[in-house]
């Protein structure tokens, strides 16, 4: 055991180039443009993924479904982050209404994004109608919010709540914080006039399709009072995760797209729920039978902008199968009934 530890330390001390590859140069492929909803209007948005040293939780423990830490690099320095941001802005300009600053971790964690870089970036975007940053709740403190509020008044804090059930968040996601932590973070953000977005995870591992559906519905109801927007993330199979290991053993299947549609339809009156089905229709992503996937993915995206359930018109023969799965999957004792 001891020997192993020594060996590991040795490895981390090995000199390595500061950063390699195109990402270090702020390659624009880690940024993209799109359309999003802002105060009921569809507006152009810019999203950028800044490479940092990575999520503090992923380095310490990690979530069962998250493989984003492969995008991190322990040797990133403050100037690298600033450079990435500058190059994205230089390439795309600022003609957007929304800018999303993603780090595959917490933008508000000063270990990840040093304070001076954070403040420079936020102040450069102070005229942007909406700047969305992602963070775990422990970094959404009154002190940090005070600091940010001074440089930018249009911040939205997006928090990966995943589910309102502490039992599921602990056992199935291994997220390492509670619903109470989220509520405190949300109230802090709102007190600083920030808006709040909550991410929910549809179908963490170790759950049947029905359990996943019911958990998502309940979580929307529970989170609605503390979030301006709820983003429903459909769990997909990312490299190097526990979810991937389970999936390879035939013990996990990403959610059906129909389950997502069901959540969106039924929660329309309760909250603004948006959804971008990443990897939709692929084996590793949320999928249906294969025939209807493309259409349903399009409709989910449409709904996210329109918030009008008239977007949902698709029907397919596999809906009977999906309904059967909802009813009977629990009796397989752990294996999905349909790949």
């Amino acid at each position, binding site marked *: 055991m001891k020997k192993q530890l020594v060996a590991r330390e040795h490895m981390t001390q090995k000199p390595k180039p500061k950063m390699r590859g195109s990402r270090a140069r702020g390659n624009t492929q880690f940024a993209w443009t799109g359309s999003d909803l802002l105060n009921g209007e569809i507006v152009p948005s810019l999203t950028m993924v800044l490479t940092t040293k990575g999520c503090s939780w992923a380095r310490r423990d990690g979530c069962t479904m998250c493989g984003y830490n492969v995008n991190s690099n322990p040797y990133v320095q403050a100037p690298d982050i600033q450079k990435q941001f500058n190059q994205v802005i230089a390439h795309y300009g600022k003609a957007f209404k929304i800018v999303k600053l993603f780090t595959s971790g917490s933008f508000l964690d000063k270990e990840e994004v040093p304070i001076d870089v954070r403040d420079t970036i936020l102040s450069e975007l102070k005229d942007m109608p909406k700047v969305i940053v992602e963070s775990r709740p422990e970094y959404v403190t009154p002190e940090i919010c005070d600091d940010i509020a001074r440089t930018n008044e249009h911040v939205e804090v997006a928090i990966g709540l995943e589910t309102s059930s502490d039992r599921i968040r602990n056992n199935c996601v291994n997220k390492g914080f509670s619903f109470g932590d989220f509520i405190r973070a949300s109230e802090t953000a709102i007190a600083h006039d920030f808006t709040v977005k909550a991410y929910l995870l549809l179908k963490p591992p170790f759950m049947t399709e029905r359990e996943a559906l019911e958990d998502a519905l309940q979580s929307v109801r529970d989170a609605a009072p503390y979030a301006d927007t709820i983003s429903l993330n459909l769990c997909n199979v990312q490299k190097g995760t526990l979810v991937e290991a389970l999936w390879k053993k035939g013990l996990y299947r990403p959610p059906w797209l129909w389950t997502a549609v069901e959540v969106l339809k039924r929660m329309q009156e309760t909250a603004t729920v948006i959804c971008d089905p990443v990897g939709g229709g692929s084996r590793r992503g949320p999928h249906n039978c294969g025939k209807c996937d493309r259409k349903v993915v399009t409709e989910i995206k449409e709904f996210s902008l329109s918030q009008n359930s008239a977007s949902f018109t698709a029907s397919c023969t596999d809906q*009977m199968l999906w309904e059967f799965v909802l009813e009977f999957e629990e009796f397989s004792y752990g294996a999905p009934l349909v790949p």
Partner: protein
Amino acid sequence: MTRLFEVTKRDDAARLGKLGWRGRALATPHSLESKEDLELLKESTIHRAEIDVAIVAAQEGTGTERIDADVVILAGAARFQEDPRGLTKALLGARKLANPDSALYVPALATPTNVSLLVYAGVDLFDSIIAEVKAREGYFLDADGERRFDEVSHRPCFCGVCNGANITELSFEHKVALASDHNKKALKEELNKVAEHIERGTLRELVEGRCRAAPALTALLRLLDNEYEYFERRSPIVRTATLLACSQESLNRPEIRRFGERVIERLRRRDGVLLLLPCSARKPYSRSRSHRIILAQLGELRQHLNEAIITSPVGVVPRSLEIMYPASNYDIPVTGTWTCDEREWVTACLTQYLSANTFESVIAHVSGPYRQICESTVEQLGINVVYTVDDDNVLSSASLQRLRAVAHELVDACSPARRDLRFDYMQDLADFQFGPRASEAIFPEIPKIGGLFPTYYASDRGRRIATITGSYQTLALTIEGARRYLPASGGKYCVQIDDFEPKGTVFAIGALKADPGIRPFDEVVVVNDRFIAVGRALMSGWEMQASKRGGAVVIRHVESR
């Protein structure tokens, strides 16, 4: 603690049983269809309920502690639908972990096509979940595979459910409803068929046919066949049904390999002259026309010869074991050509047989593929063999005369002792059934032999020692035989029972200690301090010890010790 399940009939690892269920008895193998039944099981895994249910995961197959529950569930079995290797490991692991008198339930896996193999591997309980899933995916299921809705549209199904209905006009929902009923019916029907085959002891024959429906199923059977020990431990010593060796996999049946092993490991070493003969369609061989003609030619010379029959798939059958299963009743497709697998297997058997014994000379009265096998064997061993068939016809007068002349010459050359051939049968059966040298304990001197072939009996000074039974042609000991065998047995083929007089059927609960080597239908000696009895085993010895329910031994005779 198992209270509700009892195995009533065994066929290798497959079982017929009765499971107490909501106040009635389910006959297993059984497919649970209603959601209430599935819920009852699921509830019972959480709360201690009327049924004692335990869950095992596939990875736990290495545990040693036996799980003692009415029903044991192999969790997540559905993931092995396309993975025969994983399935083999999981099924056998779960079966080994579960007590033999626990019913094994494999959820969400059974189809009419695979269920016979799952039962063959030792599963007792199923459900119709996949039958329902497949209907919703657009498939009709039958024992021979699946058909898509559009295929059924062209050629309607005439089963009692479908009744030749033209499904072209039906809506998808109606097609699903029909297919769902059809699939559930097909599963039930197949389970019925499986039960029937277990009853007759012919499940293996059914399984060898069913596994052709898909490569994954054939792979499953072959992988199961690699688990020789698992199946041998459950394989009956005799069957009344004829073993039909119609496929390549038949060669891998546990009883075929076990027969070969016992011929080498258990029988007395022979010397002198060996006569190799081809097999015959009629069994036992000596009743066949070809063997009668050959043996008539040899006459009294036979008493100085050792005879052995070369055959696929049993290998080498010493004359004395021709009445023992599986040599006594098997059938194979006869085409005149042998497959490479058959040649390889029989060559290996013959090589071992010739190496294990010390024959001075070997006569091979064989032709065609039999002769090729002899030649390739001899080439490896460097033994001198005299071939007595010249014109490719073992029954031609030239061949027969040559056989007689050569036999005379070789017997004269080494002048082996004369034997009573009837005693040969009894001695070899004793060793084959009870182990090496058992015949020396049972027959310390040459007994008086009576009876007609093959039901000979042996007596000593008017006391009957043993009889070859008419039903299974096993050697059954009398109490006198048992008294002779017991001191030398070392506990082999013995069952220690509690302090009661064994009568009728002795149940597993009454067996204190049993030789784990006992197999279903073995002749066994049953003892306690007061009584000695003989009877026929109904289950394996290890199972008698692990089980609390079911008959263990049917008693034939009992006496005070």
